[in-house]
């Protein structure tokens, strides 16, 4: 059985110490995390800097959108070939706006999907939490086996946790 333990801190420095203490107690990076109500400069808690692949999403989206738009604009004009102003049926400049908008729309949608996925949301079973984190407390949360929970609690307490919650 794995267990989720949360230590709450008033002072961000204590939380940073707690992260160190967990690292020193032999817990692997990625099993513990820091929860804050506001962004802090990256690495402020000595945490592992998260990697992401967000930048692939808009590129992928734009390609999909562009292809769809090309199909839509070309197909409608070929299906109803009305010559306007002596211009060719498939005039790139007349199709440009649709191509552009659909590529951008698709890029934005896929970026939003990317943000949600890369944020690991929706998070259906988020584990132990405390409402006061959005009021300024810093939470250090660790998920570990039952038998190691006490070590974790000791590490969290050692850094000066004002409260420990378990679930």
């Amino acid at each position, binding site marked *: 059985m794995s267990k989720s333990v949360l230590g709450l801190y008033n002072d961000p420095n204590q939380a940073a110490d707690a992260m160190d203490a967990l690292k020193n107690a032999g817990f692997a990076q990625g099993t513990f995390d820091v929860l804050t109500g*506001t962004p802090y400069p990256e690495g402020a808690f000595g945490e592992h800097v998260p990697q992401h692949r967000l930048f692939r999403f808009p590129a992928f989206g734009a390609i999909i959108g562009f292809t769809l738009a090309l199909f839509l604009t070309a197909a409608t004009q070929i299906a109803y070939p009305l010559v306007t102003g002596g211009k060719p049926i498939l005039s790139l400049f007349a199709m440009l706006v649709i191509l552009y*908008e659909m590529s951008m729309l698709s890029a934005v949608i896929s970026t939003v999907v990317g943000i949600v996925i890369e944020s690991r949301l929706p*998070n259906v079973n988020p584990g132990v939490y405390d*409402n006061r984190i959005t009021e300024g407390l810093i939470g250090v949360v660790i998920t570990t086996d039952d038998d190691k929970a006490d070590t974790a609690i000791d590490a969290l307490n050692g850094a000066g946790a004002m409260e420990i919650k378990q679930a």
Partner: protein
Amino acid sequence: MQQRRTIDQIHTNRVLLNGQLDTPKWWAPTVIVLGIIVAIGFFLIGIMVNKGLGVTGLSRPVYWGLFITTFVFWVGISHAGIMISAILRLSQAEWRRPVTRAAELLTVFSLLTALLFPLMHAGRPWRIIYFILPYDFARGIMPNVRSPLIWDPVAISTYLTGSTLFLYIALLPDLGNLRDRTTGWQNALYTILALGWRGNPRQWKLQTVGGILLSALMLPIFVSVHSIVSWDFAVTPAVEGWHSTIFAPYFVIGAVHSGVSAVVTMMALMRWLWKWEDFIRPEHFDALARLLIVVATGWLAFTFLELLFAVYGLDAPELELRDMQIFQWPWNLLFVTFLFTGYIIPVGMWLQKSVRNNIALMFWSSLFVNIGMWLERFMIIVPGLARKTPFVYTWEAYRPSGLEWFILFWSLAWVTFLMLLFSRFFPLVPLFEQKESQTFGDSIKIGRVRVPAIVREAD
């Protein structure tokens, strides 16, 4: 000029969530009054659909009148959101923080409103569907992708979808906050909407990187939308005064002018109504006014170029049109009003530091701008149509009917109504941005003085 002071997170939550957790007393009566106006407006629109466009002042040869003007006007207002939120995010301007959410919201609601006007204007709104979907499969008749009239819905729906998603993504941390502060059905609602937000470094990182990436994607969309609206006019050589290469950037910069002014109006109201003096401060108005001076002057330069190169060709009909637009009654009155309200009065005011820091004066000056900018659109669209052109056998001046004026008024009430409804459920000032500015705000000591400073992450 730093007016920032240290505010703890509990206080920030209490004050900035007062619209949701502790709804002000004025809220319900205001929403009811606005709701009545909105209902009357929908009723009148119903009458118009039933009786036909005869109830408006539209007649040969002016078929694009107040509705299209108001459509362009609201699309213009919608440019505030992304302008403020994206450009200031990308340039890391600190003063953007309390402004972004309200600005994005204005984008969403004004676009929703703008979309309604072409629908009304069509007279038989359900037939708009023929614009967009193939309507006669048997004969293979397809919507004409070469027509600017189909570009419009494509561009606007892209912008609307994009800005709504943008708004939602930036709401996530605040939804998590609301979830923590509420109980019962509200808690259930926010729990679902917050998607299990916890506030770990990964989520914050994606929030910021994603915000910047979305800003970078939304900016080109924002520029394209008003350009495409302007091409409704500019690619039409048949109407004098419309066929100008400058229309796209001219419309965009005009939109930024009116949109940012609308943000000023809104910020003043927010500060007064929700008593957010600690968060929406004179320094923010000062920064917006400085930005507006630059934007307004750029816009004036475009106006000048537009007029200059209209007469540059020395074509008689164009000269006649400009003569009418500028010198003949009643257009001359409109033109002078437009120039004074759109530029001379507001910019004259903003040049004074005392005005920039005076919220009431900023409020009124921003209203002036939008009167001027509405008139600008009216003066672009209508005069060209009102001229005698080949194949038109009758022409007369266009005078909007009472119903059209009411619908213009209705649209203002409608946007306000939507905003107030939103404010009941979601915070208008991004809380996490406020808290972030507290975390990242610092000071450095130089000699005897402490200079406010900002933390920039190494990268």
